[in-house]
Every structure is written in C-alpha cells, then in structure tokens.
C-alpha cells in the first residue's frame, strides 16, 4: 500500500468567482484601469467631467423659473441663494416655449399642428417598422395632403384636386398602355397629371369651393416659426429628397445620354454651391426674376431649395450603394427575365439602400440641422426666434438658456433618428 495522506471523498461546492473578476469591480478594472496609461487617462477624464459638472450644475439648478425679466431673475436668484449667486434664467423658456415650438401660429389652432405631428408619426410608422399592418400605408400615402391642409388650412378642395391629379395619371396609364404600349402609357401618366395641375386643378378647386364650401381657417406661412418651421422644412426635404435622389442616382447610371447628362449636371451643380447660397437665391434672386408685386411664398421657396439640395446629396449616397453591389446581382436579375423597373424594385434597390442606410440617415440628420440656416434669410426658426426674444427689453442678454433649450430639442430629434438607423441596420443585417 502506498502511503496516501488524503483523498477527497466529496466535491467542494462551487464558489463565486473572486470579486475582482465579476461585477462592478471587474468592469472597472478591465475598462478603466487596465494599465498605468489607461489609469492616468481615466483619472484625467474623471477630473474634467467633474470640474465641468461642478461648473454647470449649480448654474442649471440655482435658477429662476418664475420671473418675468432677466433682472427679476437675477434678483430672485440672489434672494434665494445669497449674494453673488448666478444661475440660469429658465423663466424665459417657461414664458416663450410655446413660441419656440409653434412660432406665431394662432394659439387657438395649435391643435392642428399637434394633430399634423401625430399624423406624421402614424404615417411614418409603417414605413419605419415592419410590424405595423400594411393597410396603414394607405394612410401614409394620404397624409401629406392631410398634413398640408391641417397646417395651412384653406379650402379642402385644393389638396383633393391635387390628389385627383395622381388618380388621373393612373387612369391615363391604364387607358393608354393597353392599346399603345407601356412607354406611351408612362408618358401619358406623366403628362396628364402635369397638365391637370398646371391648368385645371386651381380653377376646379375654387369652383368646387364655391359650390360646396368646405374650408378651415387658413394660416399664412408668415406665421410659421420655431420648431414647427424646422420640422416642416426638414420633413418635406427628407420625404421628397429620398425618392428624387433615387431617381437621380438611377439616371446617373443610365445608358441614355440625355438622361445621364441632365442628372450629372443637376447633381454636380447643386453639390457645387453651398446651401446658404441656394437660400439666398430663394429669398432674394427669385424676387427679382419674378414680376414685381409677386408674393411667391418664401417658405415654399425655401422648401424647394432645401429639397433640391438634399436630393443631390442623396443621389450620390444611393449611387454609392449601387456601386457597392456586386455585378452578379444585376446579371442575376437579368437572367431571371426581370425588366429594368422590376429588377430595381426587387433585387437592386433593397440591397443598395440597405448598404446606404448609415449615410442616408446621416444626410437626414444633417438636413434637419441645416434648416437653422433659414434664420439668415429672416425666417424665424428657433435660432431666428432666439434673436427676436432677446430683442425684448425683458429678455435682452439671455443667451445660454435659449441656445440650451434649442440644442436639447435638436438633440432629441437627431438622436432618435440615429438610434432608429442603428435599429434598422441590426434588423436588416443578413450577415455573411
């Protein structure tokens, strides 16, 4: 018998991992103090963050919410926190937040803006999320006209007669393409609505209005302002620039010389000038070209310019996606016998757009923030309004509070867009 000193007869119970390898301590060790260099960086970073908060937080919280002027703010802060105390004067936000959100929109009609915004959210839901019933898409298609009517008011027959143009185009396509072929049908589907909109839509709308008056109180564009103006311009630009951009990108790759030249010329011209130049064209040059006394809505001019600008960039983003697709995808589509539009719709575009998502959303975020440039041509978006609010004797001298509020609102919108893009990328990830 060999000499056996000890035999384990039973298993030891499982022990918890040492405290240095799990939980908070472990996380801190691995992520913050994994080496002397990282430790120094961590300490420095903590120092900077702490000193920043030390400076900002008292200012944020030693504040006044109830005063009616900057001087009252200062007095009440001193009265509350002692001599020499300085703090934020949030009272200006409390007094003016409705103006910053809605501009000069009549306050008894705020519900129309709210309803339009809810309508917008409902309308984009089926576009954004796959879980929504497809029937809601009909609502999405109708929503631009409903939102237009809600925001601007006036006769309901105008948006309806515009819708009628699309219906006419479809009818023309069906009627013409049967006997004369699909090319003639496409041309008819383009020409008939354009002629309708150019020549008949406005008279028909006013005629119907005089027969059956159905109108809501109209609100002129001059009363648009604040975030409502930013969102209106931004959403219009976003919603229109993607389809236009896709068409331009396809046109740029086209084999037809004229189509290709027009698309390249448009894209390169628009990308060659800054947005602010286009806005100045909208606000000043157009006035000179048009006959004197013309009142061509400034917000409409700005929307057109912003859309054109954004479309050119969107076209290049989509073209990037198209270029990244392997040649084999195009050939596969051809070998299946799909025509050009079917190939684009079923094979090419879904893949190209998926590749382009980060850049597309980046463009959207940029576009939304670029809407603040309209303050330079005298439109009262949030930035423009902050100047106007400061021009009141009570609030002259208030700077950080207003900009802070505006920044917060923009952050909420842009951050949401960014998070949605990440969700979309994860969902569409097919992985290789």
């Amino acid at each position: 018998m060999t000499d056996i000193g000890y035999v384990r007869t039973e298993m030891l119970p499982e022990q918890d991992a040492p405290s240095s390898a799990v939980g908070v301590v472990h996380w801190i060790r691995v992520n913050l103090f994994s080496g002397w260099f990282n430790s120094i960086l961590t300490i420095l970073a903590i120092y900077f963050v702490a000193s920043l908060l030390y400076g900002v937080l008292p200012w944020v919280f030693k504040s006044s919410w109830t005063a009616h002027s900057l001087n009252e703010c200062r007095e009440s802060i001193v009265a509350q926190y002692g001599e020499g105390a300085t703090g934020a004067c949030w009272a200006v936000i409390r007094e003016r937040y409705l103006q910053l959100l809605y501009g000069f929109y009549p306050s008894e009609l705020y519900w129309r803006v709210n309803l339009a915004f809810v309508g917008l959210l409902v309308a984009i839901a089926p576009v954004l999320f796959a879980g929504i019933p497809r029937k809601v898409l009909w609502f999405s298609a109708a929503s631009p006209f409903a939102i237009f009517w809600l925001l601007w008011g006036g006769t309901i027959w105008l948006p309806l007669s515009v819708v009628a143009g699309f219906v006419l185009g479809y009818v023309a396509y069906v009627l013409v393409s049967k006997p004369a072929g699909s090319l003639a049908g496409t041309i008819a589907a383009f020409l008939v609505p354009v002629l309708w909109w150019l020549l008949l839509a406005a008279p028909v709308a006013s005629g119907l209005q005089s027969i059956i008056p159905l109108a809501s109180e109209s609100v002129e564009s001059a009363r648009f302002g604040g975030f409502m103006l930013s969102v209106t311009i931004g959403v219009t630009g976003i919603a229109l620039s993607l389809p236009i951009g896709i068409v331009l990108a396809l046109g740029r790759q086209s084999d037809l010389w004229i189509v290709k030249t027009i698309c390249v010329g448009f894209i390169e011209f628009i990308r060659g000038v800054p947005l602010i130049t286009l806005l100045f064209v909208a606000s000043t040059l157009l006035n000179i070209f048009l006959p004197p006394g013309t009142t061509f809505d400034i917000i409409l001019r700005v929307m057109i310019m912003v859309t054109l600008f954004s479309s050119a960039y969107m076209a290049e983003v989509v073209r990037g996606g198209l270029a990244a697709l392997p040649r084999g995808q195009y050939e596969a589509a051809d070998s299946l016998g799909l025509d050009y539009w079917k190939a684009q719709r079923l094979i090419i575009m879904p893949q190209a757009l998926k590749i382009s998502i980060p850049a597309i959303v980046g463009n959207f975020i940029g576009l939304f923030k670029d809407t603040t440039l309209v303050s330079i041509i005298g439109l009262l978006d949030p930035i423009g309004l902050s100047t106007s609010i400061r021009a009141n004797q009570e609030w002259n001298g208030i700077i950080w509070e207003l900009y802070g509020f505006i920044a917060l609102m923009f952050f909420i919108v842009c951050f949401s867009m960014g998070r949605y893009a990440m969700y979309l990328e994860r969902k569409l990830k097919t992985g290789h």
Partner: protein
Amino acid sequence: MKKSVFIGALTVAGLAAGMASAGTVDDIKAKGFLQCGVSTGLVGFAAPDANGNWDGFDVSICRAVAAAVLGDPQAVKFTPTTGKTRFTALASGEVDLLARNTTWTFSRDVDLKFTFVGVNYYDGQGFMVPKELGVASAKDLDGATVCIQTGTTTELNLADFFRSNNISYEPVPIETNAEAQQQYLAGACDVYTTDASGLAATRATFEAPDDHTLLPEIISKEPLGPLVRHGDDQWADTVRWTLNALITAEELGVTSANLAEMSKGTNNPEINRLLGTEGDLGAMLGLDKDWAQRALAGGNYGEIFERNIGESTAIGLARGLNGQWTAGGLIYSPPFR
C-alpha cells in the same frame, strides 16, 4: 402636392403683378393691410412679444402709417428682414415700407433707388469700455482690442477714426450683438463699438451696468429712417407726412391723451390743419381728413420714443439729438400748411 402649390403661387403672382401698377396706397387699401419690413429683433426698435405681437420704435411707425391709411393700427403684417435681405425685400415689392433702423446714405438713396422719407432716429457709432480701464476719451484707446461686427459700416468707421487719430487697435471680429456681449463681458476685448443706441441697450442688460461707461465720442452719423421704393411719390408722401405728423404733434403738444379734446377744434390753426378740423390736407394725400388723428392715437413722436427707448425704459436713451428742434435737438418737421 408641392408642384400644384407652386403653380397656384405663380398664378396668384401673375394676378398680383397685374394689380401692382395701381399705386401702393390703392394696393394697400385693396388688400386691407400694410406689409412692413422690420428687423428680426432689435431691442427697443422691433421685437415680438410672447403672443407674437410686434412692438418697438420702428414698429410704431408702421402702425401709425397703417392707422392713417387703413384706419387700423393692427392692420400690419410684419416681415422680419435681416441686414442682408432687407433691400431686396423692399425692391421686389415683398414689403411696402421698410422701417428697420436703416441708415440714410447717398448710395442707398440714389443707387439702390429708394426714397428715405425722413429720419426717425439720429444714431451714431460710440464706444463702451469698462470703467476700471480708466479711459475718458476714445483717443486714449491706443493699442486697445476692439469688438466689432464684421461687414458693417461700423467696421469702416472704426478704421477711419483710428487712422485719422494716428492710433492703433486690434479688431476682434464678431458676428452678432449677442456674441459681442459675451466676448466683451469675458474680457476678450477692451472696447465694444456699435451704434450708441445698441450700446445703451446692451449695457442695460449687464449685471452691473454701472461698471461700464459710454465714451463721449460719436464717430459717425447714422440717421435712421423709414424708406420706400422709388417711383410712387404719393406713397412716399403718405409715409413722410405720417412721420411728420407724429413729430409736429409733439411740437404742438398734441398727445394721445388730449387728442380727442384737441380734435374738436383749437385756437391754433396749425393744430386744426393737422387734425383735419380746418383745411383739407388729408384730401391732398388722397386720404380723409381724420388721417392724422388716427395715426396719433398711438401717441406722438415723443410718446413713442419714451415708451420704447426713452429714459423710463431699461434702455434709457436720453432725447439728445433726437429732441425737438425747439429743445435743441434735430427733430424738425416742415409745417403743415
């Protein structure tokens, strides 16, 4: 959707262009409101309140004109304009009248084809310095850093002033008044220079306004006034004499308080002519005889000044050059005769 709105707008534009030849006063009466170009926001001169109603020294001119022509001081639509868009807005007909603290200069009057109808505020470029600097005159500012708004006449005036006095300065370029305020308070510049009215308004917002002083030198002439397009003299006359009515009323002691009593007739024939109880000055303008009474319902020149920028307000501007000529100022209206 957008296309049709575009087309609709073009149609409206064509119609409007057809009507525009009728003369501005008739146009305004036909559309029922005055389109007035104002600043996007300048303390004391133009600012919207929490309900979106515009108020201020320049805005009051618009309201007086609207009252004279249309009988309702509220029948004004305001177009906020920036320094860059204001002249196009007026030239293109987007606004009927521009009341936006615009300096009357030769080239604006002659080359840009506008008619300045008068001066409602005599401004001039001044300097603000902290008291602790111990500077008593702008000529002591040799080597100072100066906060200056870029692209304005103030920048050129400043260079001229320092060069003609043989002293040097270091410019700190800034874009807006708000930025200037921050830079100046943070000590990024020793001096802030802009129009004296702007300096007074800015100083009024400081936590310790008494620590800062405005230097006595005014280095430029900035006569600010409302302007209209060339080519419609009847309209220019209407605005000019509305402004003159406000000025004359102060000179003659007609205020919004005693207006009702005065308009029953007085012993002073000029007051009677102004208020329409004698003569037919209104008819010569193409208005009725009560036009000036309506314009004065919002107060005479002195009341408007006092209410918006005068010494009772936070801005606290003294009348100075903007006093009546009878009180040593430059405000002077031709007679109502």
